[in-house]
């Protein structure tokens, strides 16, 4: 068993999930079963292999440049409404569960 009940509680906290007792029990079983399978990655020595975050830094870039200059095509002028108009205020609030017309409203942040 790699993951303990305590780990499940800790990770749920990090992920902002509560999880019921029943869910925690299932999670313990499933995470251990999946991680056991994932452990086969350790069969490979990767000491001298560089990590790949994503493939788009390998293709379609300016190979003669280094760093962010490789992605020159993806940059744009830093101007107001450079790509499109921002959403009007009322449209941006339309999907919110609770607002006062100007701000998003949430339950109390500070207890006293």
């Amino acid at each position, binding site marked *: 068993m790699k993951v303990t009940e305590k780990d499940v509680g800790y990770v749920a906290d990090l992920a*902002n999930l509560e999880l*019921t007792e029943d869910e925690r029990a299932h999670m313990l079983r499933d*995470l251990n079963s999946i991680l056991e399978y*994932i452990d086969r990655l350790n069969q490979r020595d990767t000491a001298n292999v560089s990590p790949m*975050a*994503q493939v788009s830094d390998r293709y*379609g870039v300016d190979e003669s440049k280094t760093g962010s200059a490789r*992605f020159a095509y993806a940059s744009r002028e830093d101007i107001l409404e450079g790509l499109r108009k921002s959403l009007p205020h009322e449209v941006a609030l339309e999907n919110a569960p609770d607002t006062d017309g100007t701000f*998003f409203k949430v339950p109390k942040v500070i207890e006293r």
Partner: protein
Amino acid sequence: MDLNSLTIDAARSAVQAKTTTATSLAEAFYSKIQRDDPQIGSYLMLSKDRAFAKAAEIDALAAKGEKLPPLGGVPIGIKDVMVTRGVRTTAGSKILGNYVPPYDCTAVARMEAAGAIVLGKLNCDEFAMGSSNENSAWHPVHNPRDLSRVPGGSSGGSAAAVAADMAVATLGSDTGGSIRQPASFCGVVGLMPTYGRVSRYGLIAFASSLDRIGPLTKTVRDAAIVLHTIAGRDPMDATSAEVPVPDYVAGLEKPVRGLKLGVAKEYFGEGLDPEVKESVKAAIQKLSQLGCEIVPVSLPHTEYAIPTYYIVATAEASSNLARFDGVRYGYRASDARTLSEMYRRSRDHGFGAEVKRRIMLGTYALSAGYYDAYYLKAQKVRTLLVRDFEEAFKNVDAIVTPTSPTAAFKLGEKVDDPLAMYLADIFTVTADLAGIPGISIPCGETKENLPVGLQILGKHFDEATILRVAHAYEQAA
């Protein structure tokens, strides 16, 4: 003329020639959906106002005798992970149950600009996480070939709608096989383009280094038409590549004689259903008869693809799904007294079991003390997987494999065993991790009349070659 079974060109030509109208076409598809979809479950939402308004525009063009755009009047469906302005978009999740987006996904906008009629939004696994469509928060999708079986996932609704003539073409998304595997299960064509070929702007994010939008269609030609429509640089997605888009349709008829096709033994080993193996071998034989040279290749890290994928994809998902907090949009639990309680309960009630499982796995893999052992390790093995393909593509033009180790399985068969479900993607995740394009096309059936899929993988940004091979096979089969 059976309006529901038309291909893109046939539908557009019929509207252009005034044999029918875009409005009658849309009506015919809505009647078909009303009659047949209660058994299949592919649509979550119909966008009739938007569809008939666009159809009227196309009909006005046709009436004036003007040349219609490439998809003029063609009824399509959109997987519910792509946002549509004014049309509810849920990503198959309760947490977005009432979400009405204020903007359009670039791929959807490009389809409409090319004349397509958006009929509605298609069912899928919640946040595109699943291989059977059983993780939809709303209802499952049934495979049109056999209603007791799954359509595959996560683009199950997109595949089933095309297979059941409830759309001419659909858009799906692929993160671990989610276009190709359901295409294979439902007997349609499914194309995952190269990472960066199609803008992800407006695609609700699952795993941003993997997610791709692509078409599900009745023919390879239709897939080429749709890809041409949605491909190309979009300033709204910084990862969309500045790579020229060729004329895919014109390239279809180029001869395939002399093309080298790789066959990797790693895709024909243990776990492959004998009937699937037989169909795929026969398809490879057919391609050989068409003049392709079949070359053995080795992709030695294939067995590490699933474990790598389930670290990389869940880590990215745990980060992407952090935005669902009950503040700006989406579901909010009503019984919370504090902000922290509100976050937790909203997410607890809003997300389904598989989504929570993946958030937990991804958070664990990224947490202090485990980052190096899991996330960094997986990123390194990802490099090895990409190198496998780079080596293989030095010697071949494309690689042919089965799309899925089995034909469509029964609903309920794998729901209690997440690992067994994950292994359904064993032949598709490699291309997602490597960023290369792949297409699944029908290649025969099992004794139970279930479709089998042939997968053709290509080099980065070389969709043209896999489309050409797929087209040659389709025409010959």
